[in-house]
């Protein structure tokens, strides 16, 4: 069986960006007539691998072979000419041009020194017919839905004699019907002998369409498996890098609160297209709600909706018994909701300001910029939180960029704590910080919740969630799939099963 030769083989690919090893020693084999799923969490290196294959990035080490012969491409155009085409997540076409042009641009049909529009129109209709698509090809691309734009992108890829077609998250902005349509076409192309790469966060879709799976984690190749031989649970554990049998059971549980407390926030059928399926959620006063799920499963999207950073398409949010329109972070903040972002470098800290200035940002913004908090008052507040959170160095005038990740995280936390929120949303507050700081942040969360603050806690580490949260919401494929009251019966394994789905 394994005697057939791969169309494309990548061996030992290593790619380093300044400061980061994006890929190290990665192998990939693509076979004709197969859909090959590339799996891994965000940042695992899937997109980098694809970009290396298609000549967007050069690679540092390794070999790429096409039909047994070594080859090297320097530009996407060269890759296309060799028969390797990509349809990117964001449809990378020019929406200001017509459908015909988007299919042909770069290799227009010329006749007598000018572009032969008539012939191109004709050919475009033909190639789209192969995808069962019948549209007015002379219309601007922007007048069609994303699904059709995606088909046009595929048509563009097919128009050269493609051997390999790479689909990078093609389904992320399609609805169920459109996905079905796309899969029908993928199957057709597979049967015609193309090798397809399929990248997706949706496990259901991967199991539906793919024949072979390669798992990446942190830029490393974890392995290549036949889809049929790889149970979902195993796939998930390979993606997040935890062996299932190695779990220690968590002894320490937070005490169950007998009285449920009144409901602080209630979301009903909140929905945003392309971001999250309609969900209901109740958060009680003093409750810590954990959001579990793979990266890209919709955890952050849910949190952003609660904070008003994204606007929901439909649904209702009640806060303290009142219906509120959380249409902007500003409104959320004035309602007493705080959000500490997952990406502290990009969205959180302001590197060139001091600890004090970073801490004061949110409270000052809430009070209004004309209501200046005197330096003296600031110092008192900042001192309190530096002590409370054990921030090191305890110097308020230190620039925050000189602090370690954990201490930066604490400053961010302090920024929001100062505003004394009633609901605190923490998106991966413990990522990339050392174990000691992690413990302190967890302890603090428990203390705050005892004082009556509600917390939404997003973490990739199930252990943390189990230790701190009263309620666990499990996300999968941009959908809330389960809500679990945390007690001693809940284990990492049972949550993971829910994260993987289809069991």
């Amino acid at each position, binding site marked *: 069986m394994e005697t057939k030769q791969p169309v494309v083989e990548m061996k030992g690919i290593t790619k380093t960006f300044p400061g980061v090893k994006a890929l190290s020693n990665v192998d990939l084999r693509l076979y004709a007539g197969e859909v090959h799923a590339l799996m891994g969490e965000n940042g695992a290196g899937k997109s980098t691998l694809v970009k290396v294959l298609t000549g967007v990035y050069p690679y540092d080490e390794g070999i790429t072979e096409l039909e047994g012969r070594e080859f090297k491409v320097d530009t996407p155009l060269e890759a296309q000419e060799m028969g390797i085409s990509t349809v990117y997540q964001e449809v990378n*076409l020019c929406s200001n041009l017509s459908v015909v042009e988007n299919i042909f641009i770069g290799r227009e049909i010329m006749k007598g020194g000018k572009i032969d529009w008539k012939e191109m129109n004709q050919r475009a209709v033909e190639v789209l017919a192969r995808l069962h*698509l019948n549209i007015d*090809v002379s219309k*601007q691309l922007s007048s069609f839905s994303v699904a*059709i734009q995606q088909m046009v992108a595929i048509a563009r890829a097919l128009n050269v004699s493609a051997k390999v077609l790479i689909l990078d998250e093609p389904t992320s902005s399609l609805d169920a019907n459109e996905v079905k349509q796309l899969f029908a076409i993928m199957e057709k192309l597979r049967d015609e002998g193309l090798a397809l790469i399929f990248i997706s966060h949706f496990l259901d879709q991967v199991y539906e369409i793919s024949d072979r799976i390669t798992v990446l984690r942190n830029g490393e190749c974890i392995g290549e498996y036949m889809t049929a031989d790889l149970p979902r649970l195993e796939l998930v554990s390979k993606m997040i890098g935890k062996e299932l049998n190695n779990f220690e059971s968590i002894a320490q549980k937070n005490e169950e609160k007998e009285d449920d407390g009144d409901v602080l926030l209630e979301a009903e059928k909140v929905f945003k297209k392309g971001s999250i399926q309609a969900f209901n959620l109740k958060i009680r006063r003093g409750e810590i709600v954990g959001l579990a799920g793979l990266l890209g499963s919709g955890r952050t999207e849910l949190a952003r909706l609660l904070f008003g950073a994204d606007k929901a398409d439909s649904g209702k949010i009640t806060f303290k018994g009142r219906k509120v329109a959380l249409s902007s972070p500003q409104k959320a903040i004035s309602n007493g909701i705080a959000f500490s972002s997952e990406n502290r470098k990009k969205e959180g800290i302001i590197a060139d300001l001091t600890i004090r200035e970073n801490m004061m940002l949110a409270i000052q913004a809430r009070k209004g910029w004309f209501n200046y908090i005197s330096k003296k008052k600031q110092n008192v507040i900042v001192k309190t939180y530096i002590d409370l959170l054990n921030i090191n160095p305890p110097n308020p005038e230190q620039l925050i960029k000189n602090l370690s990740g954990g201490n930066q995280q604490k400053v961010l936390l302090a920024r929001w704590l100062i505003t004394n929120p009633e609901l605190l949303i923490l998106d991966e507050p413990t990522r990339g910080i050392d174990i000691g700081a992690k413990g302190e942040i967890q302890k603090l969360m428990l203390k705050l919740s005892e004082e009556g603050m509600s917390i939404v806690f997003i973490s990739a580490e199930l252990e943390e969630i189990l230790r701190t949260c009263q309620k666990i919401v499990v996300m999968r494929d941009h959908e809330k799939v389960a809500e679990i009251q945390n007690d001693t019966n809940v284990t990492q394994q049972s949550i993971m099963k829910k994260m993987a789905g289809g069991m």
Partner: protein
Amino acid sequence: MKSLKLKSQHVPVMVTLILFLTMFAFGALRYDNFFSTQVFLNLFVNNAFLIIAAVGMTFVIISGGIDLSVGSVIALTSMVAASLLQDGQFSALTVIPISLLVGTTLGFIMGCVIHFFNLQPFIVTLAGLFLARGLAYLVSIETISINNPFFSYMASARIPILDGFISISVIISLIVVALGIFIAKSTKFGRNIYAIGGNEQSAVLMGLPVGRTKILIYTLSGFCASLAGLVFTFYMLSGYALHANGLELDVIAAVVIGGTLLTGGMGYVAGSVFGVLILGIIQTIIVFEGTLSSWWTKIAVGVLLLAFIVFQRVFITLSENKNTIKPSGTNEQEALKLKSGVKPGTTAGRG
């Protein structure tokens, strides 16, 4: 042909055309002698150089860039031509190619700087503006008049047409326009410009030669500016470093009024021609009015420009909303239906 329905991307140009006709009708009704062939032809005669510069600028703006050096390049070209012709040192046959090389070279250099250093066209061409203007002063701070016979001929020759006349410069400008339309519509280079203006990132990923195209765009604009400078020299029969001061802004205004999107990706060479004609007709109306100061031209252009930019924004927002509001419009559902035996060519007959 396909359908008589107006395509949405043609709307801005149609608005320009209608505006031009309205203004012409307004002039014709208000003033005697306005409605004559010669008044119309003079719009071309007086603005031939502007039309040529606008063609180059159209490509630049469609690509999402801007070229501020145009006015200075016109001045520099006229100075170079005038000083070389002085005292009959060189013949017109030598001077003309050299003058044309001035802007072309500068445009090429600016294009390279923009591409290789990944700089904003605004700032690079602003540097070009100062450089070219400075070089023009370096040639001479005085006006240099031209008495070369060929140049004089180009200045005075009249080609009768209907019951009026046009100059040779008009013929040149119309040839440039025709070439411009051809490049925009029927060459790979032209289509790549639209693609870059629509989404440069996509253009790179689609494997288009983005760098080469960008350099060529500014080279082309530089060439057009130089040719415009030459035509301007025919018109003025002199070189002066202060010529065409701030003209680049008139050119940009004409292109935008002509329906080209300032953000790139959309526009037509023919639209820019009408943009220039609209600027011309405003001037003509003010001349006919007699009592108004010429500054009213600026006011009118300012108002029009503002109106057009606002119109473009509204137009874009509307057409974007149209696509997002209807979730899966009827024609798309129809399109998405699995049609097993689609025969090529069936779309042409629809609608």
